[in-house]
């Protein structure tokens, strides 16, 4: 039978080096699926999902399969990322969190292993109800604690940007573990003065729950682009009905922004993001950066590992919020450039896509995808209603730089 995303749970993850030889690939536990990620030159170059009945894969067959998964990389290996010096740019890492002490501890522990170390690590505690976050931060000497009483991810991120002293503000989430070279590889592309934002790949850390599998494979929340991409102003130029897919640029859990660029285009829109519309505060900022003629750089060699949510209830709410946030961000973008394409996407393309997907899933008896599509459709319809709040007066959050404003490219 064909298996859907939820039936893969619990799903194991196997990281395979392209140039290593591997023994027979077997399930080691009750795994119903295996997610293979093939790595070369420190970045993922291909991935594939196997279901349990396809296992075990004998060693010689696995070697062929790995070559096939990495076919695109083998045919045209990406040029090695230039290891040019980052011209002494300093990095401030900002981790926004809210009542997830265990996750935060894991995240900070991974940051402590980073080589080189960032200039500073700032934990923004967003509208806390207990002091558990502060207690975790005290375990890590040298990590700054910052309280942001106003709930909302955008508020927290802006607070971090305001106190950060580095030339580059690197953002990650509390449910993430970073790779030891994360800080170093994030800062490299900033050697190019036109680069305002650097993003990287988000790889799942754990797929043992159904909700995590649905999140990863059912909605594909984090794209898995495997090539270096440069997004410039030309990315915004589409046909009149096509809203640019700014979400393709990356994920907020793995991004760094030049602080001077904040001064140029403003901070995160506090009406967007988790705790407000749901999400897309990051992609809306990228939209502004691109409109300002700046460049966003995506590099799959910049890796973080994300722990997806484990329970269905919060997963469905998250899916709804994501879609709603996406739609609201379209209205914000419409407010900026008055292009009809954003409204076409919000009112026609997105609802139609989810309706079609839901019907198809229903016809195939794929209950999980159907539920996901229904949630997305709900979020999509809730978007325009939520967007009415955009009509209220709103003062955009700004970052005023001190004497280093001359650095704006």
């Amino acid at each position, binding site marked *: 039978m*064909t*298996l859907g995303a939820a039936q893969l749970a619990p799903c194991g993850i196997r990281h395979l080096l392209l140039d290593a030889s591997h023994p027979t690939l077997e399930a080691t536990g009750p795994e119903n699926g295996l997610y293979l990620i093939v790595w070369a030159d420190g970045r993922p170059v291909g991935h594939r999902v196997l279901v349990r009945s396809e296992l075990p894969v004998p060693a010689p067959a696995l070697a062929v399969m790995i070559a096939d998964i990495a076919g*695109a990389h083998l045919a045209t290996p990406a040029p090695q990322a230039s290891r040019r010096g980052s011209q002494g740019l300093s990095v401030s890492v900002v981790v926004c969190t809210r009542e997830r002490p265990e996750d935060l501890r894991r995240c900070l522990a991974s940051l402590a292993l980073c080589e080189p170390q960032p200039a500073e690590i700032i934990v923004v505690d967003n509208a806390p109800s207990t002091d558990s976050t502060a207690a975790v931060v005290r375990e890590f000497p040298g990590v700054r604690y910052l309280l942001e009483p106003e709930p909302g991810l955008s508020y927290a991120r802006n607070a971090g940007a305001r106190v950060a002293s580095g030339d580059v503000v690197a953002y990650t989430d509390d449910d993430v573990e970073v790779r030891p070279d994360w800080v170093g590889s994030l800062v490299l592309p900033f050697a190019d003065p036109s680069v305002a934002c650097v993003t990287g790949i988000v790889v799942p850390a754990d797929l043992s729950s159904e909700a995590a599998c649905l999140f990863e494979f059912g909605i594909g929340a984090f794209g898995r682009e495997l090539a270096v991409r440069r997004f410039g102003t030309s990315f915004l130029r589409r046909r009149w009905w096509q809203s640019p897919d700014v979400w393709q640029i990356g994920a907020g859990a793995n991004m760094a922004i030049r602080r001077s660029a904040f001064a140029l285009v403003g901070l995160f829109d506090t009406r967007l993001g988790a705790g407000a519309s749901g999400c897309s505060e990051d992609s809306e900022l990228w939209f502004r950066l691109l409109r300002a003629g700046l460049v966003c750089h995506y590099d799959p060699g910049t890796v973080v590992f994300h722990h997806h949510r484990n329970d269905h209830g919060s997963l469905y709410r998250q899916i709804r919020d994501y879609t709603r946030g996406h739609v609201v961000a379209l209205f914000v973008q419409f407010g900026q450039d008055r292009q009809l394409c954003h409204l076409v996407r919000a009112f026609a393309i997105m609802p139609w896509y989810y309706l079609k997907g839901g019907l198809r899933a229903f016809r195939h008896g794929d209950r999980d995808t159907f539920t996901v599509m229904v949630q997305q459709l709900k979020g999509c319809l809730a978007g325009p209603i939520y967007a009415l709040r955009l009509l209220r007066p709103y003062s955009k959050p700004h970052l005023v730089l001190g004497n280093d404003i001359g650095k704006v490219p």
Partner: protein
Amino acid sequence: MAFGLRNLEIDDLPDRLPFAGADGMGLVLRDRGRLVGFELVDRPRGAEWLDPSAYIGDEVREAAAVERRRAAAPLPPGPAPSISIAICSKDRYDWVDRLLRSLEPFCAMEPGAPEVLVIDNASTDPRLRDVCMTRAWVRYVQEPLVGLDFARNRALREATGEVVAFLDDDVVIDRDWLWALRRAWAENPDAGCVTGLVLPMVLDTEAQILFERRGGFRRGFRPIRYGPDRFGDVHYPFGAGRFGAGANMSLRRGLVLGLGGFDEALDTGRPLPGGGDLDIFFRVLRSGAMLVYDPQVAVHHEHRRELAVLKRQYYTWGLGHAAFIAKSMNVDPTTRRRFHGLLLWWFNYQLRRMRGRLRRKDPTPMPMILAEVWGGLVGLCGEYGRSRLRIAAIKAAAAKGSGNLRPGSDGASGAAP
């Protein structure tokens, strides 16, 4: 209308490839001998030559890179399973002769060469026997019951190898076929079936070109390992056509005999001459074994030359496909829902093709699409059941004339097409 066929090394391409009077060109793309791509190029009006480098795309480069990596890997340890080659034919002695000639370098002299069986499926022409008898390395076996799957089952019983490689009589093997077949089985010791690429042997007539235009029997140039399930693939494994074609398939003998062999009611010649390969692919996968598609296990197939015969083939493909579905739904009612989904998709696909044809985007002429649809409808309306009855009659007649199961005995010739 006739196309030329050319083998090209992608690292050593000629700057210009003259059409030399042909209406187009079929390019068989190789990288150090390995098959990495196939392109069908129409001759633009007035053009004398083509630039082959324009047809080396990303897909070709990727296939080449994968094969290079594969070639660099050490050969798998352990003995590869022994192989028997089985050719089932009825009367087509000249084609069998051609195929045996292509097998000769690998099977006649080499020590440890595979055994070669020719199953004579109730031929009326004695020359098939002569073609085999002149070659000491060929085992000639007569199967008096008319029907391809009778012959295939006979081959399974007669063969001694762990693996039986079935070749249709209208193919010749590619130069690396045997080597690649051994490698595929060695790489996948858990496989129950290995299928391979089927390329055109010649593109001399409109019918042959038309068939290749729609993809022919090609199933891509990347090795694929299919298991009983697959993630995120709606019609898997019910759409069994993707796995390969019976013209070039090898099966683990013990496994298939354990499954009861080929279904004799499929592939009977007229009126139901198809579906047996789909059926065996499906059953092998359902048994939990792996099915491997390896493009390097390649044969060259002589497509039907006449348009009328091609149209008849479209009809039989639809018929065989539908008969396979009708049969499988009956055998295991739990699969019914999935097969209904597949049928819906299939008819929808045919409708889209018709629409594409009306807009001149699909190369297949409307009568052929309609023939395939008609075949599908006939296949769904009890053709499999009727075929079962016919098979039972053939068997009964053979049993009645037992002791004299010669070709041309009344039971067999009565059902001959």
